[in-house]
């Protein structure tokens, strides 16, 4: 049981890190809380399903195409619905919640509530310390690590990364320094939706795809941000793994049904005991 918790906790920790980083990116740079974040992940999963099952694409092209299409959807939603409301955090919150429900219903009407299965890209499995791990799960872990390394390089080594960090630190000053803030926002949205889409695409083969699948990752991402503290990369990664191991411990040692309840318990406990999170500024003003 302990090996299962360790192995699957590590795999989920990597996925959660991607999810949480995408979520904090919008949060930190554009300064909005995007409740449609989970819906974006759901859209990506269904796109993969359709591209593979209905259009017969191979896994890798389907994956890339789904991430690209989801990115476009995210950017279009941002331009149409968020930009006019951006001054009011409350209205952005409500409109993104509305978009999330709307997209979920579109999925219900298009695919019905019946869960769908996405075939794995790498069939087969191997045993690690006596635990059966599918190749797909290992691939997911590998891709997640590569994505994290790419994101880190993007944020620290490129001009775009510097601009993103500058806008996150002080939007006005960044604008005065000649950074095109609006364009940077759009890039942040694009990267964030790409990360959500990538996470959806990575998980789709070993979970079922269903219309309401987006809420749990949204709330998990929020929990991780609360626990890790805002604006702290290492805090986010550490928190993602804490949440993942805690979830796996609950699932294997207590009851799989309580998995989410424990995550939400962590969120509330953090808010009560350590509202600033482990590192960083925290969300309590």
């Amino acid at each position, binding site marked *: 049981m302990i090996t299962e918790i360790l192995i699957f906790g590590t795999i989920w920790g990597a996925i959660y890190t991607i999810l949480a980083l995408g979520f904090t990116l919008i949060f930190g740079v554009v300064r909005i*809380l995007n*409740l449609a974040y989970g819906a974006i992940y759901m859209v990506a999963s269904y796109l993969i399903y359709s591209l593979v099952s209905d259009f017969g694409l191979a896994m890798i092209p389907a994956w890339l195409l789904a991430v690209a299409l989801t990115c476009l959807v995210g950017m279009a939603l941002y331009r149409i*619905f968020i930009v*006019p*409301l951006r001054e009011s*955090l*409350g*209205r952005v*919150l*409500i*409109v993104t*919640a*509305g*978009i999330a*429900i*709307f997209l*979920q*219903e*579109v999925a*219900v*009407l298009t695919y019905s509530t019946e869960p769908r299965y996405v075939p794995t890209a790498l069939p087969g499995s191997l045993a690690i310390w006596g635990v059966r791990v599918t190749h797909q799960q290992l691939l997911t872990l590998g891709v997640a690590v590569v994505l994290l390394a790419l994101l880190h390089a993007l944020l620290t080594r490129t001009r775009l990364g510097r601009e993103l960090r500058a806008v996150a630190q002080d939007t006005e000053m960044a604008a005065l320094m000649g950074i095109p803030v609006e364009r940077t926002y759009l890039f942040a949205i694009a990267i964030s939706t790409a990360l959500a889409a990538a996470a959806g695409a990575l998980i789709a083969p070993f979970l079922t795809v269903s219309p*309401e699948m987006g*809420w749990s990752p949204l*709330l998990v991402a*929020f929990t991780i941000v609360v626990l890790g503290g805002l604006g702290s990369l290492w805090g986010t990664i550490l928190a993602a793994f804490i949440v993942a191991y805690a979830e796996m411990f609950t699932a294997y040692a207590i*009851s799989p*049904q*309580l998995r*989410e*309840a424990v995550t*939400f*318990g962590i*969120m*509330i406990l953090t*808010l*009560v005991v350590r*509202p600033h999170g482990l590192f960083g500024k925290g*969300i*309590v*003003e």
Partner: protein
Amino acid sequence: MIRRLAPRYLGLLVVIGGLALLPLWVSNPYVLSVLTLAALYAIFASSWDILSGYIGQLNFGHAVFFGAGAYAAGFLGPHLPALLVLPAGAVAAVGFAFLVGVPCLKLRGPYLSLTTLVFPLILERLAFTFRDVTGGEYGITVDPPLSAMGLYLAALALLLATLMVLLAVAESRIGSTFRAIGDDDQAAMAAGVNATRFKLGAFVLGAALAGLGGVLYAYHLRHVGPEIFSLFTSFAIVIMGIVGGMGTILGPALGAFFLTLLGESLREIETFRVLIYSAVLILCVMLFPQGLWGLGRLLSGLARKSGMLGRARIRSR
């Protein structure tokens, strides 16, 4: 204060009294059932408004409170006389108001919204898991002590009482303090307002009224199950409040009637109900952030400006 409230109280009495007399002409049990549901949603939406609309702390988990009331009816219904179940529902909801309110007090804006969103989901999971107590996904069957007609009248009476209490609070000094905290809680605290206590007070007041409504809701459905804590149940209340017009008490009640009746009139295309709700929400936030109530005010203001009636009224002042 009473003078300011009098026209609204009178309007309320006329509208709700009219609804109460409706069964004299319309005896269709289906209509009665839809109106009961609308009245219950109106109780939930207006009790949601005192925290969300006045203090501006959007509560995405109001279902916790009426769900607590409904489960109280399920647990205690067979053991207590009917008249004691109602207060028990309110007490249960107030207990949850402290449980939710205390961790949320330090939070503001969107953070509070996401945190409140999580509470009903925890309860939903617990209800699924501890099936010996809660009946799991099947829930608990509730035996209503009232006939359908009695329940309809009880719901209307509770709606009337809820709206009158909330309007009185909203128009009092407490209401202005709520608004001051909503505008700028730092400034309110600097002026000597104990913002924490007022926020908790708004949680408790809204929860107590929702808990009472929750008991009737369980009677109406004759059942209570974990789906009462589902995401959409809480969102439906938020949508009703926003579409009706936040921070007006009567607006959210209006929104509840509007959306419930809209949902029922679209019964043939039942599958599109949620889609339409969310589309109405998005349109409303984009185009009429003041909701139906604000729209009505705007239109009546325009009519007054252009009409003779309005001019006469202005002159007489």
